[in-house]
């Protein structure tokens, strides 16, 4: 019995140790990636990188101004499309979505969320690019919006559900109509959580590359026209990373550092948003 007891203790310790090791192992890639990004990327980050255009092969320097603006524009288009659908759809799910329609929407959103982004890319290619006859920033924005939509939708629903029922009743008892209660009281109460979800969705689509490959295509030149191909930061990183030229590879690292900076800032912002005490829901 004593022997068995010692065995159990040893197994207990080693499994605890294994869980700790797993956590350390999981964090190693994060440390390595951030180290490499900083070391390789920091050297060519300067004002030029944000204000200049890409240089042709063989000429050092230059920047990614067009790609940074392109990413901002396309993320903007995506937000403009996805936001009303996500917010109003989320409102529908939390307030009226008990029936079959609600279940169908929830199911569709979850499935849409799981569709590989490359598939969304070829869908938008067939849906927008082929009818228009050419690649365009608009198509890129639409592709990103399809990725963004289900994320905002489901998050908005969850956040609205956290708003206590008593609050709705209080507003209704004051004689405020239901629709006004929803828009003025419920939405406003849940705004912090909703904005957090939007920030996380932005962080996600800012780095998406696959859906832009056959929609926005990328562009080495300055263009603000929404009906023309447009550069995007992740696309530019991809093109440069697989190129055989040293200068371009260097630019890819710097671009990656800028991109990760954007993503980390958005994530930190969203984290800071939830820091503030939340409504308790459990008993």
């Amino acid at each position, binding site marked *: 019995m004593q022997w068995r007891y010692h065995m159990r203790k040893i197994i207990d310790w080693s499994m605890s140790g294994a*869980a700790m090791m797993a956590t350390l192992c999981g*964090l190693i890639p994060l440390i390595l990636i951030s180290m490499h990004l900083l070391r390789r990327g920091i050297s060519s980050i300067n004002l030029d990188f944000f204000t200049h255009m890409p240089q042709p092969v063989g000429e050092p320097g230059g920047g990614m101004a067009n790609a940074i603006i392109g990413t901002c524009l396309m993320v903007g288009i995506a937000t403009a499309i996805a936001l009303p*659908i996500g917010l109003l759809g989320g409102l529908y799910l939390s307030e009226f979505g008990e029936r079959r329609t609600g279940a169908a929407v929830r199911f569709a959103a979850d499935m849409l969320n*799981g569709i590989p982004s490359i598939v969304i890319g070829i869908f938008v290619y067939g849906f927008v690019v082929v009818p228009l006859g050419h690649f365009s920033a608009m198509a890129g924005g639409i592709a990103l919006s399809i990725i963004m939509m289900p994320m905002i939708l489901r998050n908005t629903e969850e956040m609205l559900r956290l708003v206590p029922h008593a609050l709705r009743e209080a507003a209704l008892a004051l004689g405020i109509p239901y629709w006004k209660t929803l828009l003025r009281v419920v939405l406003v109460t849940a705004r912090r959580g909703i904005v957090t979800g939007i920030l996380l969705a932005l962080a996600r689509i800012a780095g998406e590359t696959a859906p832009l490959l056959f929609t926005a295509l990328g562009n080495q030149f300055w263009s603000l026209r929404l009906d023309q191909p447009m550069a995007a930061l*992740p696309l530019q990183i991809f093109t440069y*990373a697989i190129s055989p030229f040293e200068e371009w590879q260097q630019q890819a690292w710097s671009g990656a550092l800028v991109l990760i900076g954007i993503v980390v800032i958005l*994530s930190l912002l969203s984290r800071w948003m939830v820091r503030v005490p939340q409504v308790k829901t459990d008993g």
Partner: protein
Amino acid sequence: MSADRILKWVTASFAMIVVVLLCGIGIMLLVKSWPAIHTFTWHFPLTRLWDPVQGAFGALPFIYGTVVSSLLALMMALPLGLGIAIFLVELCPDRLKGTIAFLVELLAAIPSVIYGLWGIFFLVPWLRETIEPWCIEHLGVVPLFEGPPYGIGMCAAGLVLAIMILPIIASISRDVLETVPNDQREAALALGATRWEMIRTAVLPYGRSGLFGACFLGLGRALGETMAVTMVIGNRPEISTSLFHPAATMASVVANEFTEATGELYLSALFGIGLVLLSITFLVNLGARWLVLSIGRLPQGT
């Protein structure tokens, strides 16, 4: 019509856009891949040869590459992810919890293309110069470790995918373990269980369907992952037993060849691959959704 009803109908019609989109994606892919389906019928996903110049389009190498790289990733990420979840829920001191959870979230937030970049310039050279030569020298008799060390290939893709799905598996498993009621833990401890025995007999069985769901979600993400895989897998439509051999996945072939596809049949075959990919991920996510939703329905005692 009252304002309330108007609001209901307006929000409902916005919500329905999601349903329409989902159906639209399915229909679009089916229509666009119809020429390929019509030409190759059910031979398409079973044919090993992919040679656009000869007009031979078989999706099998890509299906193989996608499935093998994803399973490889799952094999590596699952124990680690579960370990992280167990550490966070059962062992970690409270003041470290938030920080570690945030770091894991950060790993999930890194864009795919950055994983690919890192893969090309650090992971692949490391595999080519250190890991693969060693494996080939010592384990070369096993078909899994045959051939020259390319660096790029199935092994690199599996590793990158494992890193990418690790945070998903870890964070969902953590959520699942946190739903295990404390009285289950106390029941095991009061019987004289050690902490690990408590986890094994009370915590993990209680959360098993949710944990399977976490697995499926990770798998679904790995199957559809495009950029990082495209950058490190080598994009060769061949089926090889060796993990060190270049391969290709459904997502990577679409990413690589879509803009250069000439001719209706070629493009249609790529849409067809997209359709196969969509169907597989759809099924996996369906399973995941069912499993994760079912954790709320476990018997709760009275």
